């Protein structure tokens, strides 16, 4: 599209649209990104509140939880189930993949919008519908689904066992709708990044954030098919009386586990990769350094992506699969530690000879690396079949995956939001409040989950609403650790209000950001902040890779992709 036409289109769209068209029915990728972002944040508040309620029950069994009341065993199960489902499917996915994918891909590739804007709009609408269905499921007779976020049948597929026949069905429908939304979104991410890049932008000139989101979308598309089929079978079992997962009628409950984890493991990388992409952008900007071994990072991501399809049964070592199969999955699982370790090495190596400024986004990015390393190394214990016999379904597993998912979904998201906030809203965030929020999140986070590693090491299992009935677990010091974890969680939740305060205050009174507040190189910093409809006044041309910081031939320590010389 010629520049003049875009200007014209951009002018035409301004000021004339109704509230409905502008905020709810928009096809603008930035508005859709905001829809995903704010829906994701709203769901995060629900998921965080659920965590507060069930952690209160664990720390003080039988207590009247403030803002909630007594927690019954059925409610406890529904709370943990939906906490997990929400945080992965309705927070990590929409915020990391959809919000940032939508916002960044057209801006970083230097084009005016997604390739299929209407599919993009549809994607968000289906996502919103899925979120509504899930929220409705908490209030139907019998209550929300409580069969764990993995929804193993026959508990999930037969109402007489779960005692939440309607809640279970709505949960499956919500999850299936959410998958449809992200399939539609993924089509846009991949095609836009492949077909609509600015002239001059070769594949190796694409910023890592875009690459990561594209590869994540490919992984999602390749893995989700079996689970959608599984979800439909589950729905049929629940509502039409089929017996796909019912052993008494020739079905097999373990089949669901294979379908679920064949998706479930690549899903970890679907949300991990975007976060890794943001971290790459942030550490290069604030260390004023070229990304260490760009191509190695890219190949490593491909290797991880392919390997991630071969490790799923490490979730099922003790589930009754043929025990010989465990050997294969132990080997593939430990193999995947190699590319992930290499990625961490590369990021750390990027800091070498840098000039590091500790801005709020940089603190989040560095925290991501540190916390994710803990999450990664504790995974080795679980990927090894022998030790997993002991660790499976203990709090050690729980602490391990919170050390991966928290860095991904919360730290990664905060890194992205604080870094791109000036571009999204045209204002700078307050650094002092940002740092208070950072330390107020990171310190309690570690105090929540380090004790849980210990509890797991002492044999405490997951999803049990009170440990009073177990003599080995109802001991004083273990209860003290549970209380410590709960109090830390409350502290962490309270500190989130600092973020919201900072967000609102900076929107109103923040310093004007300007086009390129960090002297960064990639194309999103070439357009006004916030970018107007159509993004760029003049569509940019790309002359070089995205991480040319501190180039010896240049006086300035950055060299934007769009600058001719």
């Amino acid at each position, binding site marked *: 599209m010629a520049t003049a036409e875009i200007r014209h289109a951009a002018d035409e769209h301004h000021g004339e649209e109704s509230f409905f068209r502008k905020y709810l029915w928009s096809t603008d990728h930035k508005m859709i990104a905001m829809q995903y972002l704010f829906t994701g944040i709203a769901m995060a508040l629900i998921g965080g509140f659920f965590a507060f309620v069930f952690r209160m029950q664990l720390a003080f069994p039988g207590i009247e939880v403030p803002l909630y009341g007594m927690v019954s*065993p059925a409610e406890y199960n529904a709370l943990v189930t939906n906490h997990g489902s929400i945080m992965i499917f309705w927070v990590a996915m929409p915020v990391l993949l959809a919000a940032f994918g939508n916002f960044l891909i057209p801006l970083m590739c230097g084009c005016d919008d997604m390739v299929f804007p209407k599919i993009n709009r549809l994607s968000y609408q289906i996502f919103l519908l899925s979120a509504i269905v899930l929220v409705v499921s908490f209030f139907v007779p019998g209550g929300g689904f*409580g069969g764990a976020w993995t929804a193993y049948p026959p508990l999930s597929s037969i109402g007489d066992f779960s005692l939440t026949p309607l809640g279970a069905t709505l949960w499956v429908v919500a999850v299936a709708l959410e998958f449809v939304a992200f399939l539609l979104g993924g089509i846009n991410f991949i095609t836009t990044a492949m077909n609509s890049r600015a002239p001059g932008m070769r594949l190796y000139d694409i910023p890592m954030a875009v690459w990561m989101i594209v590869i994540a979308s490919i992984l999602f598309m390749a893995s989700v098919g079996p689970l959608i089929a599984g979800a439909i079978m589950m729905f049929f079992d629940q509502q039409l009386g089929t017996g796909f997962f019912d052993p*008494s009628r020739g079905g097999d409950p373990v089949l669901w586990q294979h379908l679920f984890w064949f998706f479930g493991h690549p899903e970890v990388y679907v949300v991990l990769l975007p976060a890794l992409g943001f971290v790459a952008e942030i550490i290069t900007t604030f260390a004023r350094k070229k990304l260490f071994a760009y191509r190695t990072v890219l190949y490593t991501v491909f290797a991880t992506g392919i390997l991630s399809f071969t490790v799923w049964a490490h979730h099922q070592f*003790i589930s009754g699969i043929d025990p010989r199969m465990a050997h294969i999955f132990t080997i593939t699982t430990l193999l995947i530690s190699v590319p992930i370790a290499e990625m961490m090495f590369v990021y750390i190596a990027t800091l070498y000879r*840098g000039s590091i400024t500790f801005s709020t986004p940089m603190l989040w990015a560095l925290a991501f690396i540190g916390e994710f390393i803990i999450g990664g190394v504790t995974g080795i214990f679980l990927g090894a079949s022998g030790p997993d016999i002991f660790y499976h379904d*203990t709090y050690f597993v729980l602490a391990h995956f919170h050390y991966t998912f928290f860095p991904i979904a919360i730290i990664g998201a905060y890194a992205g939001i604080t870094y791109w906030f000036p571009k999204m809203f045209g204002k700078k965030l307050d650094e002092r409040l940002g740092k208070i929020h950072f330390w107020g999140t990171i310190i309690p986070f570690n105090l929540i989950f380090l004790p849980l590693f210990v509890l797991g090491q002492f044999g405490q299992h997951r999803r049990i609403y009170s440990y009073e009935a*177990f003599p080995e677990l109802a001991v004083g010091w273990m209860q003290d650790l549970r209380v410590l974890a709960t109090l830390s969680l409350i502290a962490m939740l309270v500190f989130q209000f600092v973020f919201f305060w900072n967000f609102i205050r900076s929107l109103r009174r923040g310093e004007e950001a300007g086009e390129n507040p960090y002297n960064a190189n990639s194309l999103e910093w070439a357009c006004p902040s916030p970018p107007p409809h159509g993004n760029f006044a003049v569509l940019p041309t790309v002359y070089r890779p995205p991480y040319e910081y501190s180039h010896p031939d240049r006086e300035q320590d950055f060299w934007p992709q769009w600058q001719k010389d």
Partner: protein
Amino acid sequence: MEYLPVVSTYAQSIDDAILLIAVLVGFWTVLTFTLFFWLIFRYRARPGQRAGYVTGEERQPKRFITIAHMLVLVCDVFIVIAAIRVWVDVKQTLPTAPETQTVRVIGQQWAWSFVHPGPDGVLDTADDIKSVDELHIEVGRPYIYELVSRDVLHDFSVPAFRLKQDAIPGRIIQGWFEATDTGSFDIQCAEMCGIGHGLMPGRLVIETPEQHAAWMARQGQAAGRALLASGRASG
């Protein structure tokens, strides 16, 4: 605060495999964190100092990464070997000694029940002893367990044994254990099984042969009295 008791023949080998991983992984973690924090400290921005330009495609820095990941791979090999050795012992072999007995472990919503072979040592005979929530075994005797479920998935988990196995409706899953010490220990359900999942505490009672025989005798008398009582009632 003493560590989980080690009460089965393979508990120690699982702990040893965990220790091996902890040492290898701990080494890498400490090394990585040291390097990470040192770089952050050493290369913090200072006035007048400019960052270097390192592409990472040069030979020297690239070698650093390559060597590191080769070493990680070597560690992985050791971990795989340790993990598989333990796994084969716990999950792929069954005891063949003549004194081996079989017990049946039944998971259902929401209780554990157990069928002990009774004085004759054979399962599914008239003197079988059935119990709810309590499994009684003899120290030093290998047992094969037959794990079944009446409704949904459950998981028979005995942390003191380091043992865990899912129960699947419609299947009989076999495994084994041999206790090395007497005492009573928690049995937990480790697979979400519905509303009462948190209310399925079982207890494993490990006894000396004499205690075990006495327990069986008491159970036998109790069963006899019950039989008598039901006979009288119907007669």
